[in-house]
């Protein structure tokens, strides 16, 4: 028996157990899980091989060959103040090892519904059914199929009006387990919400997070979504975020990655009605043997859409990052205005980036552009700072902070911005002594 077979059998056993344990769930949900698991059994994990452009640079064989315990029960003793001090002043919905944690969650502001999905099946069945698994297709996506097969708990967020207080949805992992976090965010017409979705580890060891997030923006809704992947350097993190935009909706995203051993982040934004706007920013910071792959798709399906993508990466040591960006302008999506850019700062000769932004345009009167750069810190800049008495390590630190400021300055929540700035340099061993 090969290891891959063993892991599949483990998933199957866990799946059966889950279906039994949750036999009281609505039928549609149990069926959904069944269908999704059948898809997973059929297609398995994606393979990095020729012809599979989507997974060309990211090899998940090691992940596919490992088994992780599932649903080991809620862990106590999670130190919120230490793990995510940036959420001071935010409302919080927390999950530990995949389970909703009442203890770590806080009361919510007016106009906001946020709860465990398990509870939402009963209380917001209509919204849940309308959106859950409708945006994140699982038929051709092994990881998403697996997540959907294990759909039990997760976060349901519904913004009904203008919500002033930011919401933090946090998934904490404390031990060597697999979790399938599921988040559904719905923005009612003209609602406004600022949400931080974060993944943190309370262990330095390995675990596997297989997350799927769906965001549905109804007419004129605005969501600012900050997605933080800051897990242990041994963790496997697979993320798939699907955003559906209705007319005149605005989606603002920041993807922040400074953690995880193997990270694959898919983000697809479908501008499915006129006048939708999407602003996507990203920052990935890698070192050691980390591998971080961002695969971002902006799908302009209707006219008068506007999108801006700006990702930056800092790579150190032997790390590797991949940026695959596709802006698709579909037939009829006339007068689309789209731009994407990926810039990388390479601090080590051994680090490597594959950056491939691409455009596919099938409409008329479209403004579109893209660019990718990768380079080292400019010697001229280093010398200039040194010539003023600043030592080289500190000079580097300044230049790195300068590099990320273009991305992080857009974070208007001050404690969060400060934490991200700090985390960015602390994530790189060369700066630990300097700051």
């Amino acid at each position, binding site marked *: 028996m090969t290891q891959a077979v063993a892991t599949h059998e483990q998933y199957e056993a866990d799946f059966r157990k889950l279906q039994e344990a949750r036999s009281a769930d609505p039928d549609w949900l149990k069926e959904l899980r069944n269908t999704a698991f059948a898809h997973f059994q059929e297609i398995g994990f994606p393979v990095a091989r020729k012809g599979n452009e989507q997974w060309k640079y990211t090899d998940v064989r090691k992940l596919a060959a490992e088994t992780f315990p599932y649903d080991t029960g809620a862990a106590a003793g999670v130190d919120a103040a230490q793990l995510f001090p940036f959420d001071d002043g935010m409302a919080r919905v927390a999950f530990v090892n995949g389970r909703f944690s009442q203890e770590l969650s806080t009361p919510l502001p007016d106009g906001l519904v946020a709860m465990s999905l398990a509870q939402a099946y009963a209380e917001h069945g209509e919204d849940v059914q309308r959106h859950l698994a409708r945006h994140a297709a699982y038929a051709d996506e092994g990881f998403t199929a697996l997540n959907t097969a294990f759909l039990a708990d997760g976060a349901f967020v519904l913004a009904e009006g203008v919500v002033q207080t930011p919401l933090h949805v946090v998934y904490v992992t404390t031990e060597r387990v697999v979790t399938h976090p599921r988040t559904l965010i719905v923005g009612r017409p003209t609602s406004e919400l600022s949400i931080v979705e974060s993944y943190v580890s309370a262990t330095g060891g390995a675990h596997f997070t297989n997350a799927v997030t769906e965001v549905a923006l109804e007419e004129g809704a605005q969501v600012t979504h900050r997605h933080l992947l800051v897990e242990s350097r041994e963790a496997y993190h697979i993320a798939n975020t699907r955003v559906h935009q209705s007319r005149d909706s605005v989606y603002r995203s920041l993807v922040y990655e400074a953690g995880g051993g193997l990270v694959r982040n898919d983000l697809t934004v479908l501008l499915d009605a006129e006048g939708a706007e999407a602003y996507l920013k990203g920052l990935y910071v890698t070192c050691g043997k980390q591998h971080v792959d961002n695969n971002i798709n902006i799908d302009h399906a209707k006219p008068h859409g506007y999108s801006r993508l700006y990702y930056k990466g800092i790579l150190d040591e032997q790390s590797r990052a991949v940026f695959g960006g596709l802006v698709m302008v579909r037939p009829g999506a006339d007068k689309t205005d789209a731009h994407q850019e990926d810039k990388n700062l390479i601090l080590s000769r051994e680090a490597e980036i594959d950056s491939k932004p691409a455009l596919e345009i099938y409409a008329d009167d479209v403004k579109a552009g893209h660019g990718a750069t990768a380079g080292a810190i*400019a*010697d*001229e*800049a280093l*010398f*200039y*700072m*040194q*010539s*003023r*008495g*600043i*030592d*080289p390590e*500190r*000079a580097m630190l*300044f*230049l790195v*902070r*300068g*590099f*990320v*400021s*273009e991305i992080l300055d857009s974070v208007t929540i001050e404690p969060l911005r400060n934490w991200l700035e700090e985390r960015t340099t602390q994530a790189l061993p060369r700066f630990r002594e300097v700051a």
Partner: protein
Amino acid sequence: MADLLLEVRDLHVAVAENEILKGVDLAVSKGEVHAIMGPNGSGKSTLANVVAGKPGYTITAGDVLYSGESILKMLPHERARAGIFLALQYPVELPGVRNREFLRAALDALRESRGEDKLGVREFNKFMEAKAEELGLEPAMMKRNVNEGFSGGEKKRNEILQLVVLDPTLALLDETDSGLDIDALKIVAEGVNRFRGPEKAIVLVTHYQRILDYITPDFVHVLIDGRIVRSGGRELALELEKRGYDWLREEAQTGAAQTA
């Protein structure tokens, strides 16, 4: 010689395989202002950069002494902490690094190396804003990224702001006058003159003698093709203004031919 500060001895410098400085001697004492003049490409910036420790040059022979000790093995920031300052001919843009933070980090580093306490934020801001105002720099410029989107003149004035805030002992000013209109030139010259003093030394690299109308040098040296071909007083600069560099170039060539 009293209080010899900088001594360049038979300095030979190459970039890749090209020899750029071909035996330069220069002695600068505290209290003095030396002007280094010469046509484009003669090696003026190379000389200033090598003294400041810019990487990329190979010293093939000779030495540079500062306060009596060779500094060739010192890193740029160590030289800065020893009191050497270079105003760059082409000040570098530092994306995302605010002018004020940059200057403060530099001052902190220098003060720390001298065993002095760091200035408090308010104290520093007051001090720096006063200096900026003297140089006609808007306070808003201190919040902008270093040199990013600055005009040529603003960049040069910003270099002089760093000079007066960091207050080194030896100032190397590389074509700080170029690209300045007459009003800006006067402001910059006033800044340099305020810095000037018995404990300070200035090496003023310039292509034109114009700035010397405002900053009177004690010595003028002419650098042509990697060699100092003539040294003199203030009057040498005026002669160069009238006659250009060609006569010296020709003299240097015949001189070189004769020695050969």
